[in-house]
C-alpha cells in the first residue's frame, strides 16, 4: 500500500475534521472574502500547522489570488496547495551509499524511534544489506530488549550493553563490530530525551562526535523522529536537536491516527530539514518514503 492509500485509509476510519471543514469551505465558495480566508486558516491550524505559519500561508494565498484574479474554488485550492508546496522541501531519499553508512535516530520520549528503526532495518535487510543495530538507549526500561526483538524480526545484528552503560561506548563498540563483520548500515537507537535537558542533549552530542571520529567518511543520516500528534512544541524539538546533532531528515510517525502532522510544514522549509520517512502503523512494513504531494493532498482533500 502506498503512502496515499495508507493515509486515505486512516482518514476513512474517522470523521475527518480538517478535510471536512476544508471541503465545506470550498463547497461554499462564492468569493474570496474575510470569512473564506479565516476558514482556510482555521483548517490549517486544526492540522497543527501553527497559528502564525497558517496566517502567513493564508496571507500569501490571498496575495496570489488577487494577482491572478482567482475566481473559482478549484483555482483557490490549487493556490493553497502551491503555497504549501513552496513552504516544504521536496522529497529526498536517505543516503546510505557509504560502507558502512550510519543512521542516527533521535527524538523525545515515546515518539517511535525504536519501532521506526526496526522497520527501517527490515527494509534494508530485504534489499540484501547487512544491517547492524546499536542499542544506545541504555536508560529506558527494557529498551534494548525491545530493539533486540526488532533485530530478530528484521534479520539484523545488534550490539547491546547492560542497562546504565555509557551510550557512547555502545556506539563505539557497534562501529567496531560493524567494521569487523562488514556491515553495510549501522542504525543507532538512542534514548528518548526532552530537548530542554542540557545534560541529555550533551550526551547526544557526544554520541554524534564518536560517530564522526570513528567513521569520518561514512555517509551519515541523523534523523529526528516526530510524532504526528505533537503540536507546536515540535518546532522547539527540531531546533534543539539540530543544535546537538545536525539533522539530515525527519521521520514523521503515527500518521495512521487522526493527527495531520502539519507542524512539519513549519519545520521543513524553516529549518531546512526535509521529512524523509513516514510511520503509518506498528507493523514491520508500516514505514514509507515521504511524498510531499501526497502529504499535502492528505491535508488538502482533492
Amino acid at each position, binding site marked *: 500500500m502506498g503512502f496515499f492509500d495508507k493515509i486515505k485509509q486512516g482518514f476513512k*476510519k474517522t470523521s475527518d475534521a480538517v478535510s471536512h471543514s476544508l471541503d465545506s469551505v470550498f463547497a461554499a465558495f462564492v468569493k474570496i472574502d474575510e470569512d473564506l480566508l479565516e476558514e482556510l486558516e482555521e483548517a490549517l491550524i486544526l492540522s497543527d500547522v501553527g497559528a502564525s505559519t497558517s496566517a502567513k500561508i493564508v496571507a500569501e494565498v490571498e496575495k496570489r489570488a488577487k494577482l491572478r484574479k482567482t475566481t473559482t474554488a478549484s483555482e483557490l485550492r490549487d493556490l493553497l496547495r502551491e503555497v504549501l508546496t513552496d513552504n516544504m522541501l521536496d522529497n529526498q531519499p536517505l543516503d546510505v551509499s557509504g560502507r558502512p553508512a550510519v543512521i542516527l535516530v533521535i527524538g523525545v520520549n515515546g515518539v517511535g524511534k525504536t519501532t521506526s528503526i526496526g522497520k527501517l532495518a527490515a527494509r534494508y535487510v530485504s534489499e540484501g544489506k547487512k544491517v547492524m543495530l546499536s542499542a544506545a538507549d541504555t536508560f529506558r526500561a527494557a*529498551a534494548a530488549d525491545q530493539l533486540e526483538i526488532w533485530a530478530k524480526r528484521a534479520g539484523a545484528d545488534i550490539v547491546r550493553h547492560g542497562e546504565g552503560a555509557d551510550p557512547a561506548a555502545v556506539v563505539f563498540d557497534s562501529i567496531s563490530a560493524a567494521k569487523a563483520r562488514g556491515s553495510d548500515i549501522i542504525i543507532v537507537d538512542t534514548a528518548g530525551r526532552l530537548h530542554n535537558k542540557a545534560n541529555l542533549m550533551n550526551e547526544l552530542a557526544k554520541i554524534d562526535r564518536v560517530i564522526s571520529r570513528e567513521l569520518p567518511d561514512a555517509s551519515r543520516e541523523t534523523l529526528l523522529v516526530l510524532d504526528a500528534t505533537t*503540536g507546536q512544541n515540535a518546532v522547539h524539538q527540531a531546533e534543539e536537536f539540530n543544535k546537538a546533532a545536525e539533522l539530515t531528515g525527519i521521520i514523521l510517525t*503515527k500518521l*495512521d491516527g487522526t493527527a495531520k502532522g502539519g507542524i512539519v510544514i513549519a519545520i521543513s522549509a524553516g529549518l531546512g530539514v526535509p521529512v524523509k520517512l513516514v510511520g503509518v502503523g506498528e507493523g514491520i512494513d508500516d514505514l514509507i518514503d515521504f511524498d510531499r504531494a501526497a502529504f499535502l493532498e492528505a491535508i488538502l482533500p482533492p
Partner: protein
Amino acid sequence: MAFEGLTEKISSAFKHLRSKGRLTESDIKEAMREIRMALLEADVNFKVAKDFIKAVTEKATDAEILESLSPSQQVIKIVNEELVALLGGQTTRLTISPNPPTIVMMVGLQGAGKTTNCAKLAALLRKQQQRRPLLVACDVYRPAAIEQLKVVGRQLNIPVFDEGQGDPVEIAKHGIDYARRNGYDLVFLDTAGRLHIDEKLMDELKNIKATVKPTEIILVVDAMTGQDAVTVAQTFDEALGIDGVLMSKMDGDARGGAALSVKAVTGKPIKFIGTGEKLGDIEPFHPDRMASRILGMGDVLTLIEKA
C-alpha cells in the same frame, strides 16, 4: 519572559487608553486576538479557544472592568481565572474503592506514558496511603512491553502479574483474582497503546472494563499533543467513560494547551502530571499552575498584584 510578552501585547492593545480614559469593546476585541494567538500557540484546540474567548469577552466587556483603573490587568486576571475554572478549579484525587482492590486501568495512545506512569502512581500511593499495589501486564503487543513493566516493578519493588502474550481480558481478570487472593489492595492495569480509531483494540478495552469493572480509567495524554487531543480524548471517553486524565512529559517546555482541550471536551478532571522519566517524577495536577503555563506566564497573580 513570556508573561511580559502577553502582558505587553495586551497593554499595547489598550495603549490609547490614557487618551480616551476608558476601554472600548474594540480594545477588548484586539486584546482577545492576542490571547487567542497565545492559546493557539500553546496548542489549545481551535474550537476550544474560540469558545473560551467568547466566554471571556462577555465577562471582560462588563462596564466595571472597562472603567477600572487597570483594565488590562483586570482582563488578564479574568482570562486566568476562567482558565483555572475550566481546568477544573481544584486538585482532584484518585478514587479509592470501598471494596478493595481499587482497580486503575491506564489507557491511551502509543507512547503516551502509560507503563511508566502506572508504576509511578503505584509507588506514590504506596508511600502516601500505605497501599499494597500490584501491576498487571495487559500489553501483549508491543515488543518487550511486559519486560518493561517487570523492570520498573523490580526497580520499585512492586510485584508484576503477567501471563505472557495471552488474552488481555483474561490477564486482567486473573490479575484481579491474584490481587484478591494475595491481599493487594491497589491494582494497575497497563494496557497497550492504541489509536482511538482502532475499533478492534478499543473493543478490547471495553471488554476489559466490562470484565473487571475498574474503579478508575485514567487516560494518559502527552503534554506535547496538538490539535488532535480533543478527538483522542473524546473518542476514548465515549468508548470507555474515562474518570480522569494524567498529563505526561510535563518536564518538557510544551505549553500544554492539550490539558484545556481534553478537559473541555470530556469534562473529566486532570488528576496527575508526569514530570520526568524517573519513577518518582509524578505530582498532583494544579489547575492554577497549568493556566499560567498555557498562557506563558510566570506567577501571574503576584505580577498582577504588583501592577
